[in-house]
């Protein structure tokens, strides 16, 4: 089943013509409307009229998350704000957030692309879709919501959290499709088992999971415990949100919506393209976005392209599940966390030493962060009350900066292992 069969099974030749048309008009618009791009192209003496093929894209500079932050909040919008009908921000924090906007047409295309991904994952208009992604600035909830509505499915916008209620609704509303992070799916599955509910009594058939890294072992676990098909989907708010790529029921890689996104895979060190099929960093150029086009956005996500044709018949190339990051960003419960954010909080708080360690683990199905920080001897041997106050203060600051709760442990000076050279600040114990 395809949502837009003509587009999804387009020949390579037709696709490349369309990509070139869309790339050229996107470049004309960013050059006219976004001072950031105009300045950058002018500085590098790039005349966009001289870019004449898809390969010529390589002559353009990259856009980084840093560029997006430097232009906070609206600096990279290509249309006046009055034409923007929706604003989202990437998961993250105040000051670190990146803001993206959508015109009415952007929302329409977004919904369509999500509908494609949902259809590829087995969902039809007859499904009852429970969306357990957070609704809010995060693109996950709303992105999938509008896509599922576009498809004509019955949408339950339950948002994330309150697992017992999720299960209650799942039973009462006869949910047939679950959409959330893979780790939350595991938690729901385990809770169903704990509650002694027979999975066979549920109506669940399909699950679409994304927004955090997961593995085939986890897929197997979800499929077995919930008796559903579990497919992966990929997106990032800087580029659009969910709907950039998604797996079909073959479950062997994610079809990229190549008529709307031009992808490259580069070596993150040399910045040169990798050989076809090799692993590298995914770089995305939007081809149809009106409000927030991005040119060669470095996603920092590691993947590789699969060029072999897919038995499902879709002609769009596939990428393998994202295998990791090229930077130190952690994705914890769907939220992007940079160790540097934690560090700057610790540096701000009086009494802590500049030695800390971030431990990420998966407790049950949910990720948890513990920050171990060295404190001065006076505090460490001081009364409990003062220690607790300090822990409380750090926790509060981290909660407000990161947007998620974090455990804090004070440790004695010099108890954190010192390493020569680069300190090992982050210990990721998650087995996914």
């Amino acid at each position, binding site marked *: 089943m395809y949502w837009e069969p003509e587009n999804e099974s387009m020949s390579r030749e*037709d696709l490349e*013509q*369309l990509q*070139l*048309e*869309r790339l*050229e*008009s996107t470049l*004309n*618009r960013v050059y*006219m409307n976004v001072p950031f791009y105009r300045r950058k192209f002018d500085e590098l003496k790039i005349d966009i*009229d001289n870019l*004449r093929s898809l390969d010529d894209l390589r002559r353009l500079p990259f856009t980084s998350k840093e560029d997006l932050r430097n232009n906070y909040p609206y600096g990279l919008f290509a*249309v006046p704000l*009055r*034409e923007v009908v929706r604003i989202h921000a990437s998961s993250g924090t105040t000051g670190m957030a990146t803001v993206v906007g959508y*015109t*009415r*047409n952007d929302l*329409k*295309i977004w919904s369509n692309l999500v509908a494609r991904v949902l259809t590829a994952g087995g969902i039809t208009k007859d499904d009852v879709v429970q969306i357990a992604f957070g609704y809010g600035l995060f693109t996950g909830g709303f992105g999938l919501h509008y896509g599922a509505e576009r498809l004509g499915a019955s949408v339950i916008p339950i948002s994330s959290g309150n697992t017992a209620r999720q299960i209650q609704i799942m039973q009462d509303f006869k949910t047939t499709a679950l959409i959330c992070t893979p780790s939350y799916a595991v938690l729901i599955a385990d809770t169903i088992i704990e509650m002694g509910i027979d999975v066979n009594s549920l109506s669940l058939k399909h699950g679409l999971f994304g927004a955090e890294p997961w593995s085939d072992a986890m897929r197997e676990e979800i499929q077995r415990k919930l008796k559903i098909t579990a497919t992966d989907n990929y997106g990032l708010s800087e580029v659009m949100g969910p709907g950039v790529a998604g797996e079909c029921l073959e479950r062997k890689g994610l079809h990229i919506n190549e008529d709307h996104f031009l992808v490259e895979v580069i070596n993150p060190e040399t910045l040169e393209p990798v050989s076809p099929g090799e692993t590298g960093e995914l770089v995305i150029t939007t081809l*149809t976005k*009106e409000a927030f086009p991005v040119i060669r956005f470095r996603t920092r996500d590691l993947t590789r392209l699969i060029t072999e044709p897919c038995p499902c018949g879709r002609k769009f190339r596939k990428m393998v599940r994202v295998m990791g990051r090229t930077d130190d960003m952690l994705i914890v419960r769907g939220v992007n966390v940079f160790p540097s954010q934690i560090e700057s909080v610790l540096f701000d708080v009086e009494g802590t030493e500049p030695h800390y360690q971030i431990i990420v683990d998966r407790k049950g199905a949910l990720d948890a962060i513990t920050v171990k920080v060295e404190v001065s001897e006076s505090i460490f041997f001081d009364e409990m009350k003062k220690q607790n106050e300090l822990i409380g203060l750090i926790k509060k600051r981290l909660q407000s900066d990161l947007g998620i709760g974090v455990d804090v442990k004070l440790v004695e000076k010099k108890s954190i292992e010192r390493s020569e050279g680069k300190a090992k600040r982050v210990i990721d114990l998650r087995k996914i």
Partner: protein
Amino acid sequence: MLKIKNLESGYGRLTVLRKVTMHVSPGEIVTIIGANGAGKTTLLKTITGLIRARSGEILFADADIRTSPTEKIAFLGCALVPEGRQVFAPMTVKENLILGAYPRLRRGDSGVSARDLDHVYGLFPRLKERERQLAGTLSGGEQQMLAIARALMARPKLIMMDEPSMGLAPLIVKDIFSIVSRLRQDGNTVLLVEQNAKAALGIADRGYVIETGRIILQGDAEDLLSNRDVQRAYLGRDLDAETKI
């Protein structure tokens, strides 16, 4: 059907088309909209070989026609309904139509049959009524119908129309556009160049917006109609006034 890549073209030292990449697929109505002087007519003249492209590619039905002479392009099945009609004024309506079938003779076709004439007369009953009248004596709307009918006589693979609404009364414009719509239903492929963006996007499947010789927007006609830049620049909506309440 038609595939254009990075087309650059102009007159003498003047560059009009800076870089145009576009395509038309079989069975579609595609429209090019843009202001006066944006390069719309130059694009059609370059496709038909009336002006030589300086660089870029033009593929028509998989044949490279960038350097082909105009008559060869016409014989391949690419018909132009020119700006300002350009009917043969001293000839009758019927003679104009028969001349329109000339490219088919060159393709080795047996020639014009009564069926061809009946077909276009079916589309334009008015032309049947005026069959023996001199084309120069027709009204503007009738001349436009004749120009379209003449192009159809060649049974073209692609019909390109340059500003068919120009200089016509609104009611006649409506007629002309409903005929263009009908051509698509009959399986024709149309490339429509228009200043009347609203009417053109109303019947087209897809569209391209051209500005100073470059395509700045492209997409489904419906999406272009709801694009605020298009509304402001080409549909005459004064959005600034609308937002100030």
